[in-house]
Every structure is written in C-alpha cells, then in structure tokens.
C-alpha cells in the first residue's frame, strides 16, 4: 500500500512540537516527519544506516530542544535546520562507507518497480536536483524557501525543478 504524503503544514507541526512531551503527539510527529527527515539525511549521508541514525538523533534532539523553539519561527524550517546540522556533523565524524544502494535492497521494496524507481532517482538525478525535488515534494517547502536554503536564486530553483520533473518523466521507470 502506498502511503500518502501527509499535507505538512506549519501550524499543525507547531502544535505537535510544542506538545512533544505528550507521547501521542511525539509519535504523531515522528510518523509524519520520519520520511522527509530520512530522505534529506540519506541525500547528505548516502548511507542507509547513517541516515536512520540521523533520524533517531533528530527526534531525540527535538524532544529536548522543543522548548527552545520560538513560536514565530517556521517549525518545518527549524526542524529542517536541525536535520541538516546533525547530518553535516555526522559527515565529518564518520569513516568512508560502502555504496548507498547495496544496503537498500529488495527487502525494503517488495515491488521490483519501486526498487527500480528508487535506483533511478538515486543514480540519474544530480545532487542538487534530488535535493530540490525532496525539499519541495517531501518537506513541502516553497521554491523561494528552497532558494534560500540552497543559496540559489529563485529562477535557478524553478528551472532545475522543472527539468528534474521532466527527467523523471523521461526515465519512464514508473
């Protein structure tokens, strides 16, 4: 069964974040955000175990740092920054590792087509294209926010995004 993207919006994320000591809310937050956090971590760390570790660390940090979150901020941006910082500090510490796709095998994707799609995504897209795609589609960031995050101008982000979509269509792996 395909899971649907849970329309992430800042208001509901904020509510959960401010109430994170409530186990149920913490769990909901976890279920909503584990995929985007993992996807970004994987794009940076290029290793499944490291990325899963990062998801762990991010949620533990969220649990403890939620009180330092200030309301007027955008919670998704805030969480994204934590994810990014944690992933980057992991990169510095770790030893070189084996390739990404070795450990993401058929056991994760029961359907062959899913594995193919994912492989295509990982292999055929450039780093930046991958990043723009998942920041827009998974994190729900606007193109303008992505431009700020990646330090690109808006037009570049827009044209890269559309090129990526076109590329995916051409790949015809789905």
């Amino acid at each position, binding site marked *: 069964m*395909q*899971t*649907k*993207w*849970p329309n992430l919006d800042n208001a509901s994320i904020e509510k959960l974040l401010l109430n994170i000591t409530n*186990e149920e809310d*913490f*769990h909901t937050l*976890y*279920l909503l955000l*584990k*995929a*985007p956090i*993992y*996807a970004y971590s*994987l794009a940076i760390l290029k290793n*499944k175990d490291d990325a*899963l570790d990062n*998801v*762990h660390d991010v*949620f*533990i*940090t969220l*649990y*403890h*740092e939620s009180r*330092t979150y200030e309301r*007027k*901020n*955008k919670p998704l941006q805030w969480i994204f*920054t*934590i994810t990014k*910082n*944690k992933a*980057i*500090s992991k990169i*510095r510490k770790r030893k070189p590792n084996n390739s990404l796709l070795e450990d*993401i095998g058929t056991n*994760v*994707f029961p359907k062959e087509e*899913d594995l193919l*799609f*994912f492989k295509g*995504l990982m292999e055929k897209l450039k780093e930046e294209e991958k990043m723009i*795609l*998942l920041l827009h*589609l*998974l994190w729900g960031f*606007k*193109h*303008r926010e992505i431009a*700020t995050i990646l*330090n690109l101008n*808006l037009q570049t982000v*827009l044209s890269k995004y*559309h090129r990526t*979509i076109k590329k*995916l*269509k051409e790949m015809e792996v*789905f």
Partner: protein
Amino acid sequence: MKKKELRNKLYSLYDAQVPDDFSNILSKAKEKGRMENMKEKTRKTGWFWKLGVAFTFLLVVGIGFYSLDRQYSVDSIIELDVNPSIELQVNKKDKIRKAVALNEDAKEILQDMDFENVDIDIALNAIIGSMVTKGYLNDLANSILISVDNRDAEKAEVLRKQIAEKIDSILSGDKIDSSVLSQTIKKQTTEAEELANNYNISLGKAEFILDVVKNNPLLKAENLVNLSINEINVLTQNKTERLSTVEKQGNASTKAYIGEDKARDIALSHAKVTKPNALEIEFDTENGVILYEVEFKDATYEYEYEIDAKTGEIITSKKEKEDDKEISNNTSETNTNTSTNTNTNRNFIGEDKARDIALSHAKVSNPQNLKVELDREDQEYSVEFYYDGYEYDYEINAVSGAILSSDKERDDDANKNVSSTNSNFIGEDKARDIALSHAKVSNPQNLKVELDREDQEYSVEFYYDGYEYDYEINAVSGAILSSDKERD
C-alpha cells in the same frame, strides 16, 4: 506521473525505509533527559570534572571543602571574541582559573601569559592591551564581543555589565572609540552548539551570529563565521537592523571602508543615473568580503549594485525593468482600505488585493480552488489556484504588492475532471478498443488506460495469456503511436 502522485510515491518509498522505531526513540529521549539533568549539576569543562574527582577525595578527608571550592571551582565562563577568541574560566571570587586560546590568533595574544589566580580586571587589562598592541583592536576595527555564562542568571548579568564597562574604559584609555557587544548565555541552543562545533568558533560568537541572522534573514550564518566581530557588527548597522539578545554600546568602526557616499557615487556613475529614486545603501557580505549593496531606480529601471566596501570595486551590477511599477504605486491607497482587520497587518494590502494581483498577472478571471494565505513573518501572501489544467503559485509582498515569484505548473489532477468534457479526444473507451482490436485480445487482464494530456496520448496497458501489452495512442486521431508486447 503527476505532481501529487509523484509526491505520494516519493513519500511512500522513503517512508518504507524507516521502520517505526518510536518506542526506542522515546526511551532514549527520556534517558538522555535524566543524564542531562545530572550533567547540569556538575556542568562545564572537562577540566572541572577532573577537579571534581580531587574534591571528592578532599571531601572524604574532610578538610576545608567550602573555601577550596570557592577558590578552585569554575563559576563563570567568559568568552572574549575580536578575531582572537579567548575563554576565561573564572571562580566565585572573580579570579581566573584558566585562560584558553580558542583559535590561532588567540594563541598569539596569550602566548605564555599566566593568569592563574589573577583578578579578572588585571587579566582583561593584559589581554586587551595585547590585542591593541598586536593590531586586533584599533580605530578601524573597534568591536569586541563578551559572552558570560553562569548558572546564576543574575550573577551573569552583573558580570556582563562589569566586564563591558571595564573593557570600554581600557579601550578609551587607548583612545579607541569602542563598540562593545555583550551577552549572557542563557540556554545553549543546539543550533549555536552545532554552529560552534562545525566551524570551530566560540559558542559566544555562534550565539551572536544567530542573533544577527535572526534579525536579518537575508544573511546566512555560514557566511558570517569567518568574519571578525567588527565585520559582523558592521552588518548589524543597517537602518532596519536590531539585535535581540546581544547588548551593544557604541557603533562598529567603518573607517576601513570607502563610505556610503562614495559607494553611491560609484554605482550612480556606472549606471549613468543622476537623479536616482528610492536609493538605499546597506552593508552586505559575500565570500568573506564586506560589500555595500546599493539599490535605486530611475524612470524605467531598477538597479542593484554590490560594491567591495574596502576597494570600491563593483562586484555585481544588475539592471531590471520595473514590471510591478503600477502595483507598487497603487499600494498606498489600498493600505487604508484593508488595514482595519487587526493591528499587525495595518500596512498589508489584504487578501483580496493579493488575489487580484495574482489573477491579473495570470490573466485568469475565474480560478478554481483559490487559496490565499498570509505569511506574517515573511510579510508575503501566497496565492494558489487552478485554471485550465494549470496550477498557479504566487508569492506576493504583503506590503508593496510586488510579485516575488510566480509559478505555473501543469496540474494533471485537474485534467482528469476536464478530460471528459474535452470533445477533441477520442476518449478512454475508444482508445482501449483500438488497442484491444490491434492486439486481437477480447478479455484482457489488469487493463489500465491513462491520458497524458500534455502529449495528447492515451497509454493502454493490459495483460493477456502471459504477455504484457503496452500501447500509445494519439488522443485525437486514435492512431497507434507505439505498441509493445512482452513476455510477462
């Protein structure tokens, strides 16, 4: 694949890779909480921890613990940042326990000075004096950042004031008109810690940078880490800027720079504009260089220059036709009409106006699923709507009404609704019949027919007798564009 489908597909692919490990995370998070609490009690450096072991021993022996504690244990941490970054560990009697060089420049300052058991004031005199002698503090760079960390917030505040005054007086003795920035470190945010660790800067500097960035979202923390305190301080001097947690006395010296007048002249003469409108000059930074950003308009164009603040060299220049002129001119009238809702959006153009701006730009009069949202922090309206198979996405400045970004994307979800009404297309049933009759199959399995509106094609897929069939059919003429039959 359509945007929504792609989004769901991606989400599910990634989500499937992360098993629900929540109970594990929850227990670790709680455990970490308990450990942090214990650490809080014996906080601070590794040095202190070692001393703690010695104390325990003394405690067991049972002699004069209290007075020794006052003398040896670190009570406050004081960080001084100029470009050299120095950490002073101070005990309850305000005597230095240890001075630590946090970067290379600091080693040069401290060299073999020994501050053990020296009064803070004396140590400050020596350190500031050395920074002046070695040229880190002078008329061209007069900023110093003081960060005080003490468990007792009141004590920290007292120390902060005391040290700021002391340093100011030392520097005025050297005839330097100083800019003293000071802060107490209340909570160590992960963000500041990460920044400090990643870029090897002091926690105090990291906190300062985050404060600056928070008040000026156009700046990025990563771009500031390698700047000196004076350079960062200069960036906070733009008209609109404020600092929230850092106290500031005296302005950063800009004497090393060519000055706003000169920067303006350079830009105007390059642009050959004599009477600029809406001229704005601000400090900015890129690649470790401090810049003047000069913006102005004339009758037809908007100009933007970046000028090296030290050399006067033009780094970038931009000239753009001012498209949204009419819109920005209108805003002053509309302000008064729409400002009645709440106090905070007094100056905002209002949702109706934002919608009109977007629709008129898109030349759409009857949009579907229109959504207008105000982002107060960014002072932007986001306007989204659908029309004729496209998804439109606008970001509009909530005050000026200028269109910040516009995006028009094919939205194939919308097409599904429209497609049935499109009489030019042969329709799914007809497409299926064409494929089946070509394949000579009458009872296919898992039949799937899809319309690709952009390419004006139907794709027909089905299985039969161990084969997979795949047809592409022109949606208007019904011509078979490709057919494929493969062993399943």
